[in-house]
């Protein structure tokens, strides 16, 4: 649909956003967190690959044509720019009704910590719930996004400390402790984690065991390197693919219209070919 010129100079953080954008499917609905890479990825994809991919955010904005860039990284919801030219302005419960009904095909979340079943921690690290070492903001809307969307995509920097055998706290549900667990807790049977995209690799979830499985690595990374930077051993697909590089077209939108503060440029290493 559009020309693809692969970039020779970008950060791993930018690579992550562009990899997410390439996963966006036309003709689907996305429930995205209203800040950072999930929203950026969908907006890039709508421009370049998937014009009929539509999104809502937690504040109940339905299919906006946002006036980007936003005023601040936190201003991707509940603002006149983020809600511009939407088809409807609703509120939070109605957004969740759409997800519960099955309209939300995909959810995309950033996360602090994840385990082999795709369970997500955004509550605390270390200690326990009351006596934590580091505390985060809580799930926000992420537990409903993870609970109700048909396919959940998780995105985060590829760091050993983020991949753990068991998350310190399940803030948002993956496959919990294995096959059938989500259904036993009352979640929709057609929901759950679908992909994990990091700054170095892509994973899916093996259908029988519901465990994370390596399916692709970045062109500059090896399978061994990716696995050595994880706190558990994932399954590995028979044939591990090579991920596509970011394109100049994707990066131009990201750098000049979305992350104008350059935050994703500072994530991970700088890659230069």
């Amino acid at each position, binding site marked *: 649909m559009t020309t693809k010129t692969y970039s020779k100079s970008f950060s791993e953080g930018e690579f992550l956003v562009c990899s997410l954008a390439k996963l966006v499917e036309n003709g689907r609905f996305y429930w995205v967190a209203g800040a950072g890479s999930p929203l950026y990825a969908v907006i890039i994809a709508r421009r370049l690959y998937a014009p009929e991919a539509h999104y809502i955010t937690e504040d109940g904005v339905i299919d906006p044509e946002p006036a980007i860039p936003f005023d601040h990284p936190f*201003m991707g919801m509940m603002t*006149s720019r983020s*809600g511009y030219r939407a088809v409807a*302005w609703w509120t*939070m419960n109605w957004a969740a009704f759409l997800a*519960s009904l099955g309209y939300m095909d995909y959810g995309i979340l950033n996360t602090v910590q994840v385990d082999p079943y795709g369970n997500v921690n955004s509550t605390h690290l270390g200690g326990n719930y009351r006596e934590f070492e580091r505390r985060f903001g809580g799930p*926000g809307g992420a*537990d409903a996004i993870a609970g109700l969307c048909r396919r959940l995509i998780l995105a985060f920097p590829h760091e050993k400390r983020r991949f753990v055998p068991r998350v310190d706290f399940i803030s948002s*549900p993956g496959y919990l402790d294995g096959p059938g667990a989500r259904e036993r807790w*009352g979640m929709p049977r057609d929901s759950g984690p679908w992909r994990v995209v990091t700054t170095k690799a892509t994973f899916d979830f093996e259908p029988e065991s519901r465990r994370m499985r390596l399916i692709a690595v970045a062109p500059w990374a090896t399978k061994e390197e990716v696995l050595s930077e994880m706190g558990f051993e994932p399954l590995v697909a028979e044939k591990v693919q090579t991920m596509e590089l970011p394109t100049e077209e994707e990066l131009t939108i990201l750098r000049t219209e979305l992350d104008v503060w350059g935050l994703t440029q500072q994530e991970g290493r700088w890659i230069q070919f």
Partner: protein
Amino acid sequence: MEVIAEGGKPFLRPDPDGFRAWVAEKKRRELVDKLTDEADAVRRLVSDGDYLVYDCNYLQRGPNSLLREVIRQRKRNLWVGGKFTWVDAGLLVAGGVVGQVDVGFVGPWRDQWRRVRESGIPCYESGNLGMTVRLLAGAMGVPFLPVRFLGGTDSFYQTGAKVVRDPFTGQAVTLVPALNPDVALIHAHQADRYGNARVFGTGIAHLECALASKKVIISAEETIDHEDFRRNPQRTTIPYFLVDAVVHAPFGGYPGEVQGYYGGDIDHFNELIGALEGYRMDEYLEKWVFSLASDREMLEKRVGLAKLLELKKRAEIREGYR
């Protein structure tokens, strides 16, 4: 109904009949003038120990002049419903007004969490949607609602929710208890003196909050004629009888954005986030709340006309907000 699992943590007990009694006794059906200022509304309607819910937040159409007044009056031991919040809980915790927090999203701020840990402030975890569905149940006058999330997480065990066998399908389903706060603070675009209010743009759960709460304070950017509501009933978001006080609060959402009216003060955001991450909240609150008698004085002395005009100019997108 078979109970499969219980969160087992404290929650504000639903009492639908108690709420009906409150409505019978306290909620005025007549059109009465409710116009007042922040100081009076907060003095009369926010009591120590109340469950307090605010709608939207400090960066986005929050009832910020009211929140500052709650801190200024040094209310105590409030149980705060912290849904969809970047910094509000951080402000309230630093202001010393918080007794307990229901967490939807309250930000990762070091100052906030150090104070929570050191003071042993109990927290519970509903998630944003858990909170808004609890408020919806409260707004419906029923004791609980079923949801298809929350159960199965560790957050569930920090709530009062239950997972039960649904008697209709036989499947597991999570029940969240209704939430009927003592007091709701809501910032609207327009209101009349009786309490009719219009909220434009997206929102979190302002109507649920107004219905579910015993006492409701509306602050509004503009006060408009009652006739305007009669002429355009479709635009009414919150009808007057739900509301106990109306505060005319131009720039009441400062430093946040109020969609279509003014932009957020990004310099202020950075100052505040810096204070929350750098343990400088005492200093911040002294400068922006305690050293000032009112919000009007804050706008005059700390913000200034030039900044206010700049923020107004930044509201370039007005379609749908008038």
